[in-house]
């Protein structure tokens, strides 16, 4: 019983660290990617046309957002059977 608790806490710690790392990466990319894509695309892609560069920056920011949503849904996918089993056990215990 205590071994299970220790293993559970170890997996929780590693899971928390990977979640934190992922959050930090997404925060940094949300700050860096749009502005860098604005200036880079204005210089190299669109020959100084700043409107197209702004559209590129907005599209890249939304790409980061969609990537975050997909990664959060995929992260919860393998845990979904565990949580449903846990809630089933808890409801049985309450009965």
């Amino acid at each position, binding site marked *: 019983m205590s071994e299970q608790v220790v293993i559970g806490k170890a997996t929780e710690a590693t899971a928390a660290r990977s*979640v934190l790392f*992922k*959050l930090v990466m*997404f*925060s940094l990319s*949300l700050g860096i990617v*749009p*502005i860098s894509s*604005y200036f880079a695309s204005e210089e190299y892609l669109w020959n100084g046309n*700043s*409107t197209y*560069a*702004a*559209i590129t*920056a*907005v599209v890249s*920011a*939304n790409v980061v*957002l969609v990537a*975050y*949503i997909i990664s*959060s*849904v995929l*992260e*919860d996918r393998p*845990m979904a059977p565990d*949580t449903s089993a846990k809630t089933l056990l808890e409801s049985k215990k309450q009965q």
Partner: protein
Amino acid sequence: MSSCPPYAPFFGFAGVASAMILSTVGAAFGTAKAGIGIAGLGSFRPELIMKSLIPVVMSGIIAVYGLVVSVLIAGDLRPEGYSLFAGFTHLGAGLACGMTGLAAGYAIGIVGDSCVRAYVQETKVFVSMVLILIFAEVLGLYGLIVALIMNTSAIASKDIC
């Protein structure tokens, strides 16, 4: 009455400032209000935190819209040869992006708070939360589109004086 008075850049800079300031106010409200709900959820179900941070990321996108419009307008400001027409256009563009960002951030905050609290009890709320948040964020996108259109007309009127 010349069409390039020396006080014309005042309106251009006011547009830059208002785009950044107002959209940041909206994003801050959205982040704070959604953060209240996420803090409440985190004490019950910590495994749902990654999904429930989506309103916070969307508020960040609203601030990015304001930042992009500010950088876009600030790239066209000049001390000489800057017409009053361009100044007013830039002010309108900045206000359009800023005020719509304020509205979008407000909506994202309230929707994020309520939906994240409901997500604790019912996991099917997640899809509808994402849909409502997307509709709220598109409001800021409309303001950004109008700001881009106005800025192109300001660019087109470059050599008035």
